[in-house]
């Protein structure tokens, strides 16, 4: 009897062990699949192969592992292209627009979640509907509206566009605020706190995850957007490109010299470093934010 029980426990244990082993195998395979393309970009940025003519081979090649590695591509990227300028431009745009957008998003979300007023529901409905229109057509309109403000083709125009859209992106944050119990606010109100004070002193300190989540997304946006930025900056203003626009033109121009792929890859790595670092260090908050906000 006892023996049987031991046996059962043993077989249970061993079956658990096999199941763990299988899980590890699956995970490893998946990790390889997931890292394969990312590693490919990294290897390409380091590839410094020369052809028989002594020229740096900058085109795409079919082999995965480079035959020679070095930092020549990075040197060219920083010394011979406008990349450093683009990098600073993007940093400028995203630093300012993430502050404005975060404030906008959070304040709208708070108001929509915790305050009751007349136009609240219609605003909610309109916001849902507006977000659904494909934006490409309105890009031309936005361009000329910015032009009326005398802002077109400047970095400030980009900041304005990125920040202005933030008012509609309040859903996740609203979901987060919805979870904070109203009783907290009610008792504060009894103590004589104004709505603005409750927002600053009660809601915000409780909302670190969602603040970081919102700020993170707003900060990353300008690094990734190559569609809007292209229209607003205009192709001829190479000085005001963001990294996404600059790298896009490097690879997708029509009559372009395609011997620059490895340099493009080097640019990608430089762009990815800050974003990935930020993302990974803030991962915990990101998860909390996205979980709390999006599954309500």
């Amino acid at each position, binding site marked *: 009897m006892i023996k049987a029980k031991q046996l059962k426990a043993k077989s249970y244990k061993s079956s658990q062990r096999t199941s763990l082993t299988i899980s590890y195998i699956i995970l490893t395979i998946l*990790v390889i699949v*997931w890292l394969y393309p990312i590693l490919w970009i990294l290897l390409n940025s380091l590839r410094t192969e020369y052809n028989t003519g002594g020229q740096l081979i900058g085109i795409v090649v079919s082999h995965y592992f480079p035959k020679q590695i070095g930092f020549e591509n990075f040197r060219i990227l920083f010394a011979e292209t406008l990349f450093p300028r683009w990098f600073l431009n993007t940093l400028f745009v995203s630093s300012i627009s993430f502050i404005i957008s975060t404030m906008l998003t959070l304040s709208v979300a708070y108001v929509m979640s915790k305050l009751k007023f007349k136009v609240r529901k219609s605003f909610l409905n309109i916001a849902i509907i507006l977000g659904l229109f494909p934006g490409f057509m309105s890009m031309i309109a936005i361009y000329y*509206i910015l032009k009326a403000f005398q802002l077109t083709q400047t970095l400030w125009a980009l900041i304005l566009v990125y920040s*202005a859209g933030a008012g509609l992106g309040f859903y996740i944050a609203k979901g987060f605020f919805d979870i904070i119990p109203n009783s907290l606010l009610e008792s504060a109100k009894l103590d004589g706190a*104004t709505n603005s004070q409750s927002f600053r002193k009660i809601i915000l300190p409780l909302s670190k995850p969602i603040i970081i989540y919102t700020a993170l997304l707003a900060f*990353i946006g300008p690094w990734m957007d190559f569609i809007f930025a292209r229209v607003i900056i205009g192709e001829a203003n190479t000085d005001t490109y963001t990294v996404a626009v600059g790298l896009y033109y490097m690879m997708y121009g029509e009559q372009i010299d395609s011997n620059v792929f490895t340099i493009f890859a080097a640019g990608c790595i430089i762009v990815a470093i800050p974003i990935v670092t930020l993302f990974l260090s803030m991962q915990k908050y990101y998860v909390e934010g996205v979980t709390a906000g999006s599954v309500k």
Partner: protein
Amino acid sequence: MNNNQDTYKKRNILSRFFSIFIYFGKSIYNKFKKFINRFKDGSIGTKLSHIFMGAGNIYHKQYIKGVIFFIIEAGFLALMILSPQVNSTPLGFKSIANFFTLGTEPGSIFLPTDNSMLMLLFGVICFGIIGMFIAVYGSSIKSSYKADLDVKAGKEATSFKEDIQALLDDRFHVAMLTPAIIGIITFTVLPTIFMIFIAFTNFDSLHPAGQVLFDWVGFDNFFAIFNGTGEISVRFGPVLGWTLVWAFFATSTNYIGGIFLALLINKKGIKLKKIWRTIFVLTIALPQFISLLAMRSILAEYGPINSMLINLHLIDDPIKFLATADSAWTARITIIFINIWIGVPYTMLMTSGILMNVPKDLYEAAQIDGATNRQAFRYITVPFILFVTAPFLITSFIGNITSFNVIYLLTGGGPTVPGYIAGETDLLVTWLYKLTIDQSEYNIGSVIAIMTFIITATATLLSYRRSKSYKEEDAFQ
């Protein structure tokens, strides 16, 4: 019985439809009545406010408020009368006439042509400004009337300081929403209205703005979907069909894959959970124009994957996975798989978060009832996840209908359908992009945008009406 229900439903919809009109009619009538009453009952200041905004406030010694109102009126009138020009197109009263004519000067080699596109846009902006001005005009009179009432009641009219304090408390939503609404009206609402109007014009590649005048054409562009042998009538059906198929598979594969991955990583006994998770999160953090380009090159005919398969003697000739694929479905299936690579980490993160939040007491109760781990998983964990993430499915379905990057960067819509712009893997949005940005067929593009909108809006409305959060909000009524 069924029949009865149907007619009941129909009647219900019809009556709702009319009740909207009745509601609007009533509210306009009420507003007008109030307007008249205020003029009749108001003090001399309020009466003056009907002509000089802010006069009533100044009459009640609310100087700052009064001056602000007056400046707005002056600014508005100055803008309308002076009609400043942007790209030689006026913005002001003139733009209202221009909105209807869309330009009259055809131009010549030495004379500029009226820019119909800007005239349409500025017309829309002008109507927007007038609309907002009317709202402010109303509120200036209201504000003065309120001061009248305060004085009548023996109180003092509110001071500027008090107004500001109200903005931080009772009217906090006003202070907070104002900047957001300015942004939304300027950069979303007005451009969207402009875009809708384009669908009713002949603004296309043969009518470039500023070189050739274009004009209103009514519903012609919409009829083009159903008639003729043009691009839009031939390709609309197939593109729409694939868009829906894509949205369905992209959503479901990511959802199932994400939950699977989350369960795998969070499994009891798996070590270094955080590191596993971090590796997958890399794909979210990497800009898509980088990761998708990498994917495209890796899967190319002479790329690393094909060379590896050939070296392993699994295949003899390279497989064409993407834009040059022999069959549309090869490319489509590849795209859906790559989309798993892109999207699964996101669902995984979310599900991981939820897994940590499964109420502990559920498990405890189950344990007391003698449930095994497996049973607890089967009857508690899974239903909990499904229950909590259901709304997410809807949002991501809609997101996938309008997903642009994956298709545009991987195949550019290819494999091509000879003779047409929309390729085998083009979604409505990428087709729209090609038509407008590459081909300058703005009117057709706008029609497609409206169609896309109708589809996504229907899906959204249907789902939100059923969702829990909607019912809690009980909005839309």
